[in-house]
């Protein structure tokens, strides 16, 4: 929809010949006497040469204007031509380092149009997420319930029933508390709203970061693709720690890109943000190398090879922060992180199955990102007068493209390494966030200059939208409505009674606040330590069966899904046990899931 600026060169204007051969070395800018004007060295308009548009955001910050020397022919007409060798470059006052020249494409109109389009994208993303409806997912129930207990512990000193730090996917005092606070105010919907806000912020930061790396059009393309992926839609309506951590990673990424040109070490502000992201969701640890790499690569065009020190320094500071955090928090957090990153998820899902799932959920965006990375490597041009690349050498572009697009693959590779597809559909969102800028490049390349192949771009996006919508619908409906089961259980609650429930997180969450449904009254079918009448400690199936024989549980609920072996043993024991009677059954239906929940009550 964008209209080319009025200052565009006439179509008949001859384009400069592309110089061949080795890229001329980057020359540092010459500081002008008034300290607001930077005289940039002459740069040939080669794809490999520094050619970067001025940062419109920075320019609006103080409105400083510099005069840039331009010796080479072929100055794009977007720039205000001040003469044969001079063009205007917007520079912030006194806080950034040297700004390499790039072809200017920004204008206030373009900026506001882009922001308007971004607003539409965010509205679409919000609509796609909030349309999903279901009762709490198991992880949501676990995290929110843990948060309620943490709040009670922090505010009122109520003892915690267990060491949540050792098995939650993030620090219990972070997202669980935040989510539970929202849950306490407005229920599950309020907790999910936090995730929605986080995911909208993620998309906004993605746009801004990509705009800084490339330009508005690429930023919009990246945001357009990212907002319709299954992971983005899901995470925007799931009250778990993932969305907040992803938003924090996005903020950290944005910081390192936004401060890339700055001389002082403002990029290190990203380190505590990234550390917080990891503390909130240990899975985010996987993406810190990408973040560190981005810190160096984004700064490379401004500072040359010394910029790569940023990667090391960012990594070192982050590691220091982790060490300090672990020293303060304790070993339980390390155990929790290990459980997320290694042991808990380890499974036996076939590699091909994981790859097929990953391909289904994130394959299209990843493919477009790979296409963008390849195209970005080959040619730094999108439209005839547009240069989307960071100035720098081709190897630099190769590394940046491979690193960003490859991060999407890294997620899958790690899951393949664990032989599990647990949470793959949401974890893909982390990798896709980093791959999205290159996907934006790829989509822009597909569309071509002047929207020459708009239909192709729309076809890709429509496919991404259709896939994302249908997959999010399917996955968000893949767990059964908890309402009937919770309602049935609520009939038989008694003060001090004990309840054996196959997956007890859901009823614990929904029945919280009831004096006869305290977390300590629940036992899941995962494990038990039961002391029988002779004082013998029993675990596992013998422990459960001994407890049933003793009438230990007031209510027993199983559905033959999580622990089918134990459930079968329970069914056999219960049907001949006069203390218990089958109170009824609840049929659980969900997408790709059907089970019968048996409810036994002690008479």
């Amino acid at each position, binding site marked *: 929809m964008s*209209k080319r600026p009025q200052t565009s060169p006439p179509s008949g204007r001859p384009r400069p010949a592309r110089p061949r051969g080795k890229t001329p070395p980057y020359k540092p800018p010459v500081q002008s006497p008034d300290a607001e004007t930077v005289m940039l060295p002459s740069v040939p308009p080669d794809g490999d040469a520094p050619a970067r548009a001025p940062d419109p955001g920075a320019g609006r910050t103080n409105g400083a204007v510099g005069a840039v020397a331009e010796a080479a022919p072929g100055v794009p007409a977007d720039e205000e031509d001040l003469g044969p060798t001079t063009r205007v470059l917007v520079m912030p006052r006194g806080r950034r380092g040297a700004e390499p020249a790039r072809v200017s494409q920004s204008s206030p109109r373009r900026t506001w149009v882009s922001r308007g389009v971004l607003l539409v994208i965010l509205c679409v993303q919000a609509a796609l997420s909030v*349309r999903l409806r279901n009762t709490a997912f198991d992880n949501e129930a676990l995290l929110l319930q843990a948060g309620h207990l943490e709040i009670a512990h922090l505010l009122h000193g109520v003892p915690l029933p267990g060491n949540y730090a050792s098995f939650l996917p993030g620090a219990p005092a972070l997202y669980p508390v935040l989510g539970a606070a929202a849950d306490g105010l407005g229920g599950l919907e309020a907790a999910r709203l936090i995730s929605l806000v986080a995911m909208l912020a993620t998309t906004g930061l993605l746009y801004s970061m990509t705009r800084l790396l490339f330009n508005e059009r690429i930023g919009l393309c990246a945001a357009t693709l990212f907002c319709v992926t299954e992971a983005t839609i899901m995470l925007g309506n799931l009250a778990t720690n993932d969305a907040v951590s992803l938003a924090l990673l996005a903020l950290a990424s944005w910081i390192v890109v936004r401060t890339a040109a700055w001389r002082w070490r403002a990029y290190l502000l990203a380190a505590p943000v990234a550390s917080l992201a990891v503390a909130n969701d240990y899975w985010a640890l996987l993406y810190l190398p990408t973040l560190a790499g981005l810190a160096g690569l984004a700064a490379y065009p401004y500072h040359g090879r010394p910029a790569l020190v940023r990667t090391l320094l960012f990594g070192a500071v982050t590691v220091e922060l982790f060490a300090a955090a672990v020293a303060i928090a304790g070993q339980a957090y390390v155990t929790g992180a290990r459980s997320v990153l290694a042991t808990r998820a380890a499974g036996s899902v076939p590699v091909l199955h994981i790859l097929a799932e990953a391909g289904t959920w994130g394959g299209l965006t990843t493919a477009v990102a790979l296409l963008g990375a390849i195209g970005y490597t080959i040619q730094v041009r999108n439209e005839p007068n547009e240069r989307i690349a960071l100035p720098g050498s081709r190897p630099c572009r190769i590394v940046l493209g491979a690193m960003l697009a490859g991060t999407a693959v890294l997620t899958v590779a790690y899951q393949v390494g664990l032989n599990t597809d647990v949470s793959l559909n949401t974890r893909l969102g982390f990798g896709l966030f980093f791959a999205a800028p290159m996907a934006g490049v790829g989509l822009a390349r597909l569309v071509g200059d002047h929207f020459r192949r708009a239909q192709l771009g*729309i076809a890709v996006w429509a496919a991404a939208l259709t896939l994302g919508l249908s997959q999010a619908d399917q996955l968000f409906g893949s767990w059964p409505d908890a*309402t009937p089961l919770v309602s049935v259980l609520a009939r038989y609650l008694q003060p001090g009674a004990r309840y054996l429930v196959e997956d007890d997180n859901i009823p614990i969450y929904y029945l919280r606040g009831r004096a006869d449904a305290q977390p300590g009254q629940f036992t899941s079918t995962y494990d038990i330590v039961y002391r029988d009448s002779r004082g013998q400690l029993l675990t596992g199936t013998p422990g459960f069966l001994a407890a049933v024989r003793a009438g230990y549980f007031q209510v027993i609920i199983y559905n033959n899904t999580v622990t089918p072996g134990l459930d079968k043993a329970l069914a056999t024991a219960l*049907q001949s046990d006069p203390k218990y009677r089958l109170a009824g*059954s609840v049929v659980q239906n969900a997408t790709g899931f059907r089970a019968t929940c*048996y409810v036994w009550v002690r008479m």
Partner: protein
Amino acid sequence: MTAGARAGCLAGITLIAALAGCGTLSSHAPAASSGRHGATADGSGPAASSAQKLPYDISGLLDPTDGKFFGVEPQGAPAFGPVTSFADSLGKRPDLIGQYVAWNSSFPAQAVSTAWSYGALYYIAWEPYQTTLSAIADGQSDAYITRFAQAVRALNLPVAISFGHEMNGNWYPWGISDNTAAQFAAAWRHIHNLFTQAGAGNVIWVWNPNVISSLPVVALKPYYPGDAYVDWVGITGYFDNVGPHNFATLYGPTMTEVRQFTAKPFIIAETAVQTGPTDLREIRSLIAGVENHPEVLGFSWFDYNKKGINWQIESRPVLRNALARQLTGLQLIDPKK
């Protein structure tokens, strides 16, 4: 229109089409929720899908203390006309309606539903004709039993089922002549387990021997499948012209024997008074016995004209009036409460 504008329009149309194709913004609202903890069980009819309803909580019917069951086994069931005639003649609506259901017959869901709407619990006397107890226990009827159980679960209304009633007699194929007590108990437990697997917790299981006076040598305990499989102990016993003439002598010995192995409540599952010199006294004794025994949940009148004996109350005005008078003081149960 520029290429960009065309592209934007196309993208917008695509988005709208995609959203429309995947449902409206509210199309995924949970169907069974009414507030956070959602649905309530009303069991108000068979039309709704059982998957969307909570299982009916029958715990209040297992040993009710707020009244008695006054039932009828009408000739012509499952037709409902005889029930209303019976009720009209006595001026009292029964809260228990019985039907004899032959083996391999389907579950009379409509009759159960109609009775429930009327305010009565349906009582099925399930008669294993054309099969054997050992065949049932061996699983040869599993498909039929499972189908029956699934229909019971799907209806999601309380129903009482008595399998192989009067098993301690020698007049039915499932009686003592051709079967052992162990076979009967095994068949019962097998059926019960299949109902459990089907998730049908809405069944009140009635173990129903005949009064032991008919065949006193037959011990009841071996026929008893166990407390885990039984909710009520039904007793069949008629006030005929040759047997005991009061509640205590007719049912007492059986109740005493049963109490030696279970504490489950009783129901007089099948009874009637034959016209004779003591019929009015027997009517009074029956009602008084039910009223005065807290462990007796009620009785069900066998309203048949069968094998030359007319047990139907409507055609016997003197007895009918006597029974109607006795019933005026009897507090009945509302099963739907």
